């Protein structure tokens, strides 16, 4: 009932609310991998999900596809076009995967089958999900390869993944993901394994697919440069929660969460010369061992005693920009850790 109402209201394509994911620990007790994640993706929008490894970025995507590790459970709401994925039957989730939502992984060599020709991998989807005949499927497969700019698509269909370079393989993986015209593409570190020149090509391809085909993309990356190039909105995750979310320019230029600020400060700065980099001290908490209060407080240069007490909620600063930290890291108090960066940037 609710489903039809929100679908008609033309809500976001993807709407995740209070998503909690628990994975079984070594002794069987559930450990929280995601702890109340909210995320939306509108039609034709590119949303970036940032954070260090282990922050829950990939887990969010896997939960959406019903691909959690063995024994993992998800609670909350995950709506695609208003339909709640968590209340779907396994069969319905399988139809969702591929037809509505598709995923591209970091390493195309492990997501493509090494023993099957590219054509076989593409037409399999088309024949199974779209019920196309052999000829029609082949024609469509060649068209898909042309879309992702693989030279000589007809010939490419007969070749095997190892015969292509890393960048070309990732283009083929994207073509496989696009085979059933999904509305939403989940791209998990799609360019991390690639050279910058090849990465630029893939980023341009994703942007073109959004402009020309209205594709929505959730791009998961730890690279804030990639985020800045491609995403309209950015959410930063830490220890299974959203630390900060907002429009790309606001989050990257005026970060309001110390963690976002730390990630940006850890990047090499143009003009800084041969100075040391400023990593965030320490490492993210291990699964199930998140500290009390704000999970970031042991690593935070702005932390006060109260940070170990109550867990800060994600509160709006403006209509679109929200942060889960009551302290403003850009306020008029320079921490010792940030002085060098600012001096270098001038």
């Amino acid at each position: 009932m609710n489903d039809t109402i929100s679908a008609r209201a033309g809500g976001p394509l993807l709407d995740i609310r209070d998503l909690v994911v628990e994975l079984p620990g070594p002794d069987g007790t559930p450990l929280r991998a995601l702890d109340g994640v909210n995320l939306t993706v509108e039609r034709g929008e590119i949303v970036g999900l940032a954070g260090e490894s282990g922050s829950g970025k990939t887990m969010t995507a896997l939960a959406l596809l019903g691909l959690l590790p063995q024994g993992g459970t998800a609670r909350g709401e995950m709506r695609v076009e208003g339909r709640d994925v968590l209340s779907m039957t396994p069969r319905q989730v399988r139809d969702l995967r591929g037809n509505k939502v598709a995923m591209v992984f970091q390493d195309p060599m492990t997501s493509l089958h090494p023993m099957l020709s590219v054509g076989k991998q593409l037409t399999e989807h088309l024949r199974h999900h779209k019920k196309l005949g052999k000829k029609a499927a082949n024609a469509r497969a060649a068209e898909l390869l042309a879309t992702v700019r693989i030279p000589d698509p007809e010939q490419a269909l007969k070749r095997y993944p190892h015969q292509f370079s890393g960048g070309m393989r990732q283009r083929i993986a994207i073509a496989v993901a696009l085979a059933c015209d999904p509305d939403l593409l989940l791209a998990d570190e799609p360019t991390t394994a690639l050279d910058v020149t090849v990465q630029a090509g893939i980023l341009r391809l994703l942007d073109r697919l959004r402009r020309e085909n209205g594709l929505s993309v959730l791009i998961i990356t730890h690279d804030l440069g990639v985020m800045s190039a491609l995403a309209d909105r950015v959410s930063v995750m830490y220890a299974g929660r959203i630390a900060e979310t907002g429009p790309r320019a606001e989050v990257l230029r005026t970060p309001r969460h110390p963690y976002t600020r730390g990630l940006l400060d850890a990047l090499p700065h143009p003009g800084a010369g041969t100075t040391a980099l400023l990593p965030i001290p320490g490492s993210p908490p291990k699964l199930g061992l998140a500290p009390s209060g704000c999970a970031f407080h042991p690593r935070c240069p702005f932390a006060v005693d109260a940070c170990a007490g109550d867990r800060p909620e994600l509160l709006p600063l403006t209509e679109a920009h929200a942060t889960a930290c009551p302290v403003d890291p850009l306020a008029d108090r320079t921490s010792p850790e940030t002085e060098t960066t600012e001096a270098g940037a001038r």
Partner: protein
Amino acid sequence: MNATPDASLVLRDLTVSYHSPGRPAVRAVAGVDLRVEPGQVVGLVGESGCGKSTLGKAAVGLLKPASGSVEFAGAPVTPLGLKPRPPAQRGLQMVFQDPYASLNPRRKIGEQISDAVVLSGGTRADGRALARELLDRVGLSAEFAERFPHEFSGGQRQRIAIARVLAADPSCIVADEPIAALDASAQASIANLLLDLARERGVGLLFISHDLSIVRQIADTVAVMYLGTVVESGPTDQVWDDPRHPYSRALISAVPRADGNGELPQDLPGDVPDPAFPPSGCRFHPRCPIAVDACADAEPEPTEFLPGRRAACSVLAPALLKIG
């Protein structure tokens, strides 16, 4: 600076070839001149397959050059064989990309670090004492000496690998993608650790990486490699702010910047060609936006157009020399 001024690593017209049956020899490094002086950080950048790892391996004697020479501290670097290397060459050490593969999983890390001391004639007890000291120096606890590699994270393992290298008291370190396998925050701290070695101990560092922004941050000079040749080299700031060779330009403008501007990085069409069949003339000409017909004929020589700055481009050469 405690290293002697002549402890430089010098590559002269270095060529390294790979041979496989039924295929022409692949010249992975095709005539490179490079110099790493004590206390200097030299960044070597380029796309995968450009030959930068091959160059690194030849520089420490893990591969035999087909022609040209590698010299360290005034003596030729002999390719590693069954015999131990000459003691003079122990000052030249290498840090590998994958700390999971470069440490022995079945030996305690303290023992692995102390090997260098035993090899150079010291006692195991001396070695153990040094291992504890070095673990502390690379930012780990001395207590860790009794543990095995699997007990550590990737960043910690790379610190252990660096401690092991330091046990040989090196004056030059070749680091091949030392941070590529690590998490973003661990990347910065390992890069800082290597930079400190150069700054504080006067160790020369050849830092091989495909990550231009890290190289930009820590290297004094940078060499840009394409398909086995160095197309441009010079002081890092100058090359970064004002790259001249069309390939360096393309490479640098492909790096996305986290400035929130939403600008897509520039694309460089085409792939790196198969090094077994390199294009004739200038190896970059099929992908080059400013190539002319003559580029397919003659291989351009590196031209020094400003002190310390070289570029190998025959189209630009006349203009470069005039501006320079």
